[in-house]
């Protein structure tokens, strides 16, 4: 359920089913079972109505190399039967928005990666869609361009377009989204506002490298404010449910009194990466079937 007017992020490891969901919601793939409604229309019965109400920025670049910037937008506007004057006005307006006015008659093959992406976003907005689907819109772009594109997205969203975003950049999801869903193996595992998800994880993470990690774990487990401890290759990560900056001195004392020497300390507020790894249970590139079933169990528990 995506609420009208929000930026909604859809996160999941490769192969989790994100693109399949987008393809179904954008009516490129038929829905197998269940139902879905976009802008009030059912994907099964009203695909044409949906196509009129949505805009899409695809994961891969889908620009005709041999058309100019203006022609790309012109073609798109025509596909949606926009009247000529409205089309022309919108083209000017959007080229200004994504700062491609100077490139209007440049073939897209001569554009840089960032320009191409901006053009695609402009194209997605040509028809003032109710819902804009963006499938990894900032993949492979430099930080400047990403930040610029985020600005466009916020602008667009403010003007009333609901944005359905998928991304592998957790910071992107964190900064932009009103709400996030994490999916794996075709199931939604968790949904919530970014801060809710991060809080639910346990507030802060304290990373410790000590002379005896096992002993350190044993000592810290007793603390009521410690929610859990994870083993890393060289150290341990302690998840705490209070503000770590105040707990850290106490932890250091406990360890020192217990005869454990602390070699390194790092305090980290949880990031969306942590949330993501926590819920999907593995790093992105691991495709272990056994760990996968754990994720499904988690989904089932919820």
């Amino acid at each position: 359920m995506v609420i009208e007017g929000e930026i909604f992020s859809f996160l999941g490891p490769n192969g989790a089913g994100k693109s399949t969901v987008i393809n179904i919601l954008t009516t490129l793939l038929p829905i197998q079972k269940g139902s879905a409604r976009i802008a009030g229309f059912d994907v099964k019965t009203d695909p044409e109505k949906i196509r009129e109400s949505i805009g899409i920025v695809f994961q891969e670049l889908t620009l005709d190399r041999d058309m100019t910037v203006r022609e790309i937008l012109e073609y798109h506007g025509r596909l949606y039967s926009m009247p000529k004057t409205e089309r022309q006005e919108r083209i000017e307006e959007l080229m200004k928005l994504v700062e491609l006015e100077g490139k209007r008659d440049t073939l897209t093959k001569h554009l840089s990666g960032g320009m191409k992406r901006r053009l695609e976003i402009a194209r997605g907005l040509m028809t003032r869609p109710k819902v804009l689907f963006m499938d990894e819109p900032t993949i492979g772009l430099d930080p400047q361009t990403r930040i610029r594109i985020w600005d466009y997205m916020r602008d667009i969203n403010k003007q009333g377009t609901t944005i359905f975003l998928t991304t592998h950049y957790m910071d992107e999801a964190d900064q932009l989204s009103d709400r996030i869903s994490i999916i794996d193996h075709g199931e939604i595992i968790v949904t919530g506002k970014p801060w809710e998800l991060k809080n639910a994880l346990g507030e802060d993470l304290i990373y410790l490298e000590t002379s005896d990690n096992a002993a350190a774990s044993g000592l810290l487990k007793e603390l009521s404010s410690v929610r859990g401890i994870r083993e890393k290759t060289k150290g341990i990560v302690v998840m705490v449910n209070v503000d770590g900056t105040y707990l850290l001195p106490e932890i250091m004392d406990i360890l020192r009194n217990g005869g454990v020497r602390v070699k390194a300390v790092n305090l980290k507020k949880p990031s969306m990466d942590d949330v993501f790894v926590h819920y999907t249970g593995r790093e992105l590139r691991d495709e272990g079937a056994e760990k996968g079933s754990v994720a499904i169990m988690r989904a089932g528990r919820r």
Partner: protein
Amino acid sequence: MNTGFLTIYWRDMLRFVRFRTLLFASLVQPALWLAFFGIAMSNNFDRLTATLPVLPGIRAVDYLTFIGAGVIAMTTLFTSLFGGTVLLFDKNWGLMRETLSSPIPRIHIIIGIGLSGMTKSFIQASVILGFGLLLGVQFFEGYSLMQLLVSLLGIMLFVGVFSLGFLFLSAAIAISMESPEGMQAVITLLTMPFFFTSNALYPVSSFPPLLRALSTINPLTHLVNGIRYFAIGNDFSAIGIHYVYTQSEILVSFLALLAFAGIMFLIARWRFSKVTVT
């Protein structure tokens, strides 16, 4: 009325004029066919047939004039059969996702590609006609201006319907295939039987029965009939053979082309309804 097909048409024509080399090649290639093959074969055939008795009272045309119609037909066949390739590239490069996720009905994609291919065929046919007349093809001999206009219209009508049929076929193949190489192979394979069982380059009257039957159902034969009827006349001899076309024969040829285009359209529509591009 939804004019989505005009959008598809617009884009395809845009690309056609943008690729200067492609445009140039597609116009020069048929002219070269006529120049090299036409003149070379023409001299051979005219010498071979020089000893044949001339049919009295019947206009005899030389071989270059005879295959002038064939070269127009052949060029239309090749261009149209390859005309759908753009769809395969669009599909493979992801460009078709934009079109397929837009409100435009799929049938308009087929129609748009058909119309742009037809336009290209018109341009090519005109170039060959003009070039052929320069080379000495005896088309439109003794025609009044009115007759000339009617003839040109007739030729374009035949060329148009014929090219639509093969463009629909090409679109159906393109949308069903995965690789450009595969498409190339299939189309090259297809052109052979169409080309060689037709009356484009030689008469079919001395074919063995099976080949004759094939030539009768071959759209290319019907196109060539139409072009010869309009460009040369309904009563002439070439290579020692007497050609007489009645109006009803020409009408049958035209209807055959219409039927062919119709069937190919249905096939293309069916293939497009099956397509999922993700």
